[in-house]
């Protein structure tokens, strides 16, 4: 099993949107895929059409000693996903992060134990904080997709995180520029800097700004259902193809 961690450089860069669409694109390319939400905001599920009022997810199951596998769902498109779920209090989150700190390899071990085809790809919506949740995902990851919006702070944060992971000999980390609009000068300049100064850690696939994405989420769908001919659908198909190739490279180098 391969694990891809999708991590936002700063809040709102679009990691959840990318994780949901990458998982769906891989599924549509007939790859066995599992989407896993480690973010306490619990939003990944909405892209897959889950009810707003359904609070199910693995976090509460884990705290209450229940089997978290029962928190897995399947979207109308056929994508299997595990939501984070709704925790009832801050105290519950503290208990969860405390437990995860004491069991640093928990997620990696759980994925290894799943009876799934060996070529299954798990796409994780990875939070920046709390660190205990983030570290669970990064410890299992074969590839980190670092989502960068075309703004200055996101660029600074993404390039810094990529350098830090490289220095720490962490998993292969690639920056994905998300929400790019070529009619905006700052977007073009950020793109130039990424392509010139950080070429080795930049995904060649750019996700363009596309109103279809916001509208699709408002309709509880991905763009593959809502607007299959959109630029976003094209971009995510390309991103999934590139991700598969990249995971293949990682396997060769391992």
């Amino acid at each position, binding site marked *: 099993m391969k694990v891809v961690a999708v991590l936002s450089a700063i809040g709102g860069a679009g990691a959840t949107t990318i994780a949901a669409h990458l998982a769906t694109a891989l599924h549509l390319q007939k790859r066995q895929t599992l989407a896993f939400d480690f973010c306490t905001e619990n939003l990944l599920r909405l892209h897959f059409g889950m009810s707003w009022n359904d609070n199910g997810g693995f976090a509460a199951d884990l705290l209450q000693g229940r089997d978290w596998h029962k928190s897995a769902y399947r979207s109308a498109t056929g994508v299997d996903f595990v939501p984070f779920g709704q925790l009832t209090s801050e105290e519950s989150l503290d208990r969860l992060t405390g437990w995860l700190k004491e069991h640093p390899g928990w997620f990696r071990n759980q994925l290894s134990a799943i009876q799934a085809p060996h070529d299954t790809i798990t796409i994780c919506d990875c939070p920046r904080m709390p660190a205990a949740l983030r570290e669970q995902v990064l410890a299992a990851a074969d590839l980190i997709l670092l989502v960068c919006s075309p703004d*200055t*702070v996101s*660029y*600074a944060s993404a390039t810094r995180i990529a350098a830090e992971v490289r220095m720490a000999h962490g998993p292969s980390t690639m920056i994905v520029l998300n929400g790019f609009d070529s009619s905006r*000068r*700052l977007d*073009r*300049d*950020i793109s*130039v*800097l990424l*392509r*010139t*100064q950080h070429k080795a850690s930049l995904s060649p696939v750019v996700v363009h700004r596309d109103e279809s994405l916001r509208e699709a989420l408002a309709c509880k769908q991905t763009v593959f259902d809502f607007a299959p001919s959109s630029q976003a659908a094209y971009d995510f198909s390309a991103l999934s193809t590139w991700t598969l190739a990249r995971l293949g490279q990682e396997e060769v180098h391992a």
Partner: protein
Amino acid sequence: MAQHAPKQQAPYAAGNDVTSLFSHFGDYSRRATYHEVVRQDAAINAACRWPLLAEIEGIGADPAIATIPAAATAK
């Protein structure tokens, strides 16, 4: 009727950009170097348009808008 004399062609002179390119990469037969120089110039231009980007890239800070520690202003 008086004929307008044709405009005299200016002798060829290398523009500043060409001159700077020669100074950048010297041996014009090395195309890879040329591409690298062009990319580097594009990156510097991109960063210099935005003071925060320029700071991040280590190209320079705008002293006019730099902050100073509050303690330094205490009387």
